[in-house]
Each structure stands twice: as structure tokens, then as C-alpha cells.
């Protein structure tokens, strides 16, 4: 599967270089929109190949991809997404794995800052340790902004999530430049080790259960 996907990505990348700039831009926007949702790479690349083919044929006829798509690109994307979005189990599974990764990053950051990684001592949440949590929050806001404002500009360019990026930069600047080092390391809240370990174990168990269910369903279907 991986080889097929890699070959498809490579083929698409090569074909994209032969397209008109305006068509390339539209394709990039559409693919960006799909990336904001839970779409498998193979589905996403298959659609990319179809759209490239459509753009190539349109060009031969002296038309553009925009002529083929119509004005409402978002409606087109929503129409396709209805049929290729992953099922809820897979989506939840991905969310759980993301959660596991975030908790692991938190643990590592805690270890890096206090050099005392252990299930016994728990997680000391300071100003710097809020970064991973803040990052998750920013990612959610970012997705919401992009989903809402994409394709709305008349010049065809995306809305940059300026507000989200500014939040992150300002927060980092304030904590790293203006807040003294000893205050940065101050403990603002504390999660006991057993609570963190319990969350990790439960998350892992649910994630593997969902993975097993998902694989089982696929093999039956």
C-alpha cells in the first residue's frame, strides 16, 4: 500500500509541474481543504490524480480547471468529502493517537525541564509546559478558521490563520523574554503521576481496541 501511495504521490508531483499556474493554485487549495478533514492519503491522492487529468484535458480544449469546477470550490470539496471522509471509528482512533502523542510530549517536556521523569512524581505544569496544551488549542482554532474562510477571497488565495500564529508568537515572546527564568520554571499546577499513568493506559487500551475493531470491520467488509 505504501509503495502504491508513494508512486502515486510521485506521479502526481510530476504531473503537477506540467499544469498552468492558475490550475496548480486551485489544486493546491482543494488538497489543502481535504487535509483539514480526516481523509486517507490514498483517497486524497487518487482525487488529486483525477483533478490533474481534468485540468490537463481542460487545457487541451483551451479551458481552465476553474471552468470545469464552477465558482463554488467549497461546495465541490464538500460534495467529494461526503463520500471519502473516514468513518467515525477511524477518526476517533486518530484523535486518540494524537492525544497519546501530546501526553508523551508533555512528559518529555516535563523531564527536560525538571530532569525528573518518573510516574511517581507526576507532571508539574508551569508556563513553558503549557506550550503543548496551547499548541493543541491553536491547532483546533486554526482548523476552524481555515475551514470557515477557505475559498472566500476573490483572488483565490487562502486566508492565513494570522490570529492563531500571532497568539503563539506573542505567548512565546512574553514567557521567554519578559518572564524571569525562575518564574518560568514555577509550578502552576500539578497532575499526580498515577493520574497521568492511568490516562495513558486507558487511552492506549481504547486506541488498540478501536484499531482492532476497525481492522476487523475492514476484513469483513
Amino acid at each position: 500500500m505504501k509503495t502504491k501511495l508513494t508512486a502515486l504521490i510521485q506521479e502526481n508531483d510530476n504531473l503537477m509541474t506540467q499544469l498552468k499556474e492558475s490550475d496548480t493554485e486551485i489544486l493546491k487549495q482543494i488538497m489543502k481543504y481535504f487535509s483539514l478533514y480526516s481523509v486517507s492519503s490514498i483517497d486524497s491522492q487518487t482525487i488529486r490524480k483525477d483533478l490533474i487529468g481534468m485540468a490537463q484535458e481542460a487545457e487541451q480544449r483551451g479551458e481552465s480547471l476553474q471552468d470545469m469546477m464552477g465558482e463554488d470550490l467549497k461546495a465541490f470539496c464538500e460534495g467529494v468529502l461526503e463520500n471519502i471522509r473516514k468513518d467515525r471509528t477511524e477518526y476517533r482512533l486518530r484523535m486518540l493517537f494524537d492525544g497519546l502523542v501530546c501526553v508523551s510530549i508533555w512528559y518529555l517536556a516535563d523531564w527536560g525541564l525538571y530532569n525528573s521523569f518518573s510516574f511517581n512524581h507526576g507532571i508539574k505544569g508551569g508556563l513553558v509546559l503549557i506550550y503543548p496544551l496551547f499548541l493543541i488549542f491553536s491547532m483546533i482554532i486554526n482548523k476552524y478558521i481555515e475551514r470557515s474562510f477557505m475559498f472566500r477571497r476573490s483572488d483565490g488565495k487562502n486566508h492565513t490563520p494570522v490570529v492563531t500564529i500571532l497568539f503563539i508568537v506573542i505567548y512565546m515572546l512574553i514567557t521567554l523574554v519578559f518572564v524571569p527564568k525562575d518564574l518560568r520554571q514555577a509550578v502552576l499546577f500539578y497532575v499526580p503521576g498515577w493520574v497521568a499513568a492511568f490516562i495513558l493506559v486507558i487511552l492506549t487500551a481504547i486506541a488498540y481496541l478501536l484499531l482492532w475493531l476497525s481492522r476487523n470491520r475492514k476484513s469483513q467488509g
Partner: protein
Amino acid sequence: MYDQSQLMRGTLEGCILKIISLSETYGYEIVSTLQHFGFQDVKEGTIYPLLVRLEKKQMIKSRFCPSPLGPSRKYYSITNEGKVLLKEFIESWERVSDAVGQVLEIRKGDVLYEDKTDGVNSGK
């Protein structure tokens, strides 16, 4: 102005299936056929999500073939499941079209139906 999109949504899928059932065909040819028969506003971007949907449901299958214009082209053909769905669509469409046609032909004062309790109902 009347919004045709909801009305088109269900019927277009059946029409696409019918065109594909006639012979193996590709996106632009399907659009041209639909436009020729009066679906003037239909573009490739309109039918593509429906083709994806039909292919996911295994009502149609596709393969890439070189086209006379140069780039390889995706050709669609109907499956056995698609043929069954098309038959069901045609039957449903005939029933709905017949019912809508009869309702739209009613004139003021016409007898609508015979009510067994109150006698005759008219379109007054």
C-alpha cells in the same frame, strides 16, 4: 428564484448511471451528454462528487486509458450492482414523475379525490 440543486441532486445520479450504462465513458463526455439533453448548468465539478460516490458504492468501476488528447483519461463502466440500482431508479422516477405530473395538472375547481366520509373534495 427556484433553487434547482436539491431537485437535481437525486436525479442527476440516476442520469449519470444511465449514460454510463450505455457504454464505457469519461467525465467530459458525460457532462456533454447531460448538457445536450438540457442540464445546461452541469459541469465536471458537479458530476465528479457523484462519480466518486457511485464508485465508492461499487455501482460503477473505473480504469485509466490513454486519450487522443494526450493525458490518460479515467473511463467509467457500470457494475451489476449499478444495473440493479439504475433499474430501481427508473421505476422510482416513473412513479414520482407520474405523481408530480398529475398534481401539477390540477386546475382550480377540479375534483381532487373522493372522500369516503364527506363526499367529494374539490380544489376550491
